[in-house]
């Protein structure tokens, strides 16, 4: 499978997202195209990862987990970086839709982070020999999961939308201090986890299949974040319209935060 096909998919996803951002009139349908691309990309990407990719010279078939684990963690970091950006922006321009974006990205980031770490544990058992170990990378990943669970819990405990937005922006900025340490931990310190790989360290077919899955999961990340953003926006509209008539469980946080 030539590498350019994966880059075409990646560019298509990014381009569609650009259209979605630039032309508000297209927002009703662009996400549907992205959803189709994402679902189709994951289905075909799974086939490529499980059937087409060659077995690794060292790890055999177990390394096929990489095609899911790596893009999931990338997407988690991407979403959480957007959460950081939106948190900073909110403190400058008190716009509640920025708060809705932070909320959406934190949840999507925590979702991808959780399954990414879970897959890492499943991969670790047959290759490292252990499900888990407190090396710098895994420790910072665990901190990321609990810190952002706390962030989502905070949102549940504050009723006033303005205060909730400001406080969670503050917590989001402080929480983001873990992200650079998480990313660079494998470079700064000796760890059990291997360093970030790259196109130069992979067989071209393996790299292009990884890129294909990354593009597919990126499309799904955009769709998830956009849909979650719409839910958050609608909740805010209700809160502003009828602050006193709110049911106590509004501003729902899904089970990931538990």
């Amino acid at each position, binding site marked *: 499978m030539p590498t350019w096909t994966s880059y075409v998919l990646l560019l298509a996803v990014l381009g569609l997202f650009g259209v979605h951002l630039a032309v508000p009139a297209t927002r009703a349908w662009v996400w549907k195209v992205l959803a189709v691309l994402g679902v189709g990309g994951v289905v075909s990407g799974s086939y490529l990862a499980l059937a087409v990719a060659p077995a690794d010279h060292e790890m055999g078939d177990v390394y096929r987990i990489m095609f899911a684990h790596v893009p999931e963690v990338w997407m988690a970091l991407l979403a959480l970086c957007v959460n950081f950006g939106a948190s900073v922006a909110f403190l400058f321009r008190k716009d509640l839709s920025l708060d809705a974006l932070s909320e959406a990205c934190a949840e999507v980031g925590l979702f991808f982070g959780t399954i990414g770490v879970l897959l890492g544990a499943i991969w670790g058992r047959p290759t490292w020999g252990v499900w888990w170990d407190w090396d710098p990378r895994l420790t910072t990943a665990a901190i990321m999961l609990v810190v952002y669970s*706390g962030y989502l819990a905070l949102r549940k405990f504050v009723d006033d939308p303005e205060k909730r937005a400001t406080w969670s922006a503050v*917590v989001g*900025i402080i929480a983001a201090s873990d992200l650079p340490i998480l990313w660079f931990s494998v470079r700064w310190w000796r760890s059990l986890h291997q360093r970030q790989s790259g196109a130069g360290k992979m067989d071209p077919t393996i790299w292009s299949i990884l890129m294909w899955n990354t593009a597919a999961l990126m499309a799904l990340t955009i769709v998830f974040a956009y849909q979650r953003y719409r839910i958050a926006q609608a909740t805010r509209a209700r809160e502003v319209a009828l602050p006193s008539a709110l049911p106590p469980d509004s501003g729902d946080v899904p089970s990931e935060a538990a």
Partner: protein
Amino acid sequence: MIDASAERGIAFRPQPIGLFHSAAIVFWKDLLIEWRTRARLNALIFFAVATLLLFSFALGPDTALLRQNAAGYLWLGILFASVLSLGESFRVETENSSMDGLKLAPVDARAVFLGKAVGNGPMLFALSFVLLPILVALYDVSIAGGLAALVGVLALGCAAITAPGTIYAAIASNARARDVLLPLLLFPLLVPALLASVKASALVLQGDPMHQLGSWLGLLAGFNLIYWGLGFTLFPRVVED
């Protein structure tokens, strides 16, 4: 408590007083409240001592094990007590809307942060000193050799707890379920600093064959800079209306 700050300057000075001056006033006011009741420090000491006792009950009579893990128990005791201390330091402000009074004074919110954070630090630091003899008695560790290094570790570790602790306590004190929220937000964030504190204390208590103490202290100092810088910048946003 507002009288105290008024006496010290605001009423008699036409121009706003400086950041560090007002921080000192907030710090002094908290210290005065604490001195008059002495409730908080007593409760903290009791709580932390009980925590250390509970660890020793839970693990049974294995002295070697207790000695090996003494640094971890010390820091868990301090951490649990810090939640009480931080929550209390903002309860006195929310109770009679004193925070609004402070803001109307007007006190720069960053001064409130500095005053509160610097005030909670010595409280925890004093607590940790009370815990040291208990650590020696219960866990049979020897602290005489590295007392100076231990003081440094305790000071840096307590400072690393109070900066994010102050900002999160301010948030939690105004939210529902504040007793749940503060540890939920604070504990995960403190994991790296706590890890460095425990490692550094363990090296002091058990010897440092690889001369790693300096690096752990450096790491702790790095976390302190991050926490204090971010906390100082972001605190005004937390207390604004």
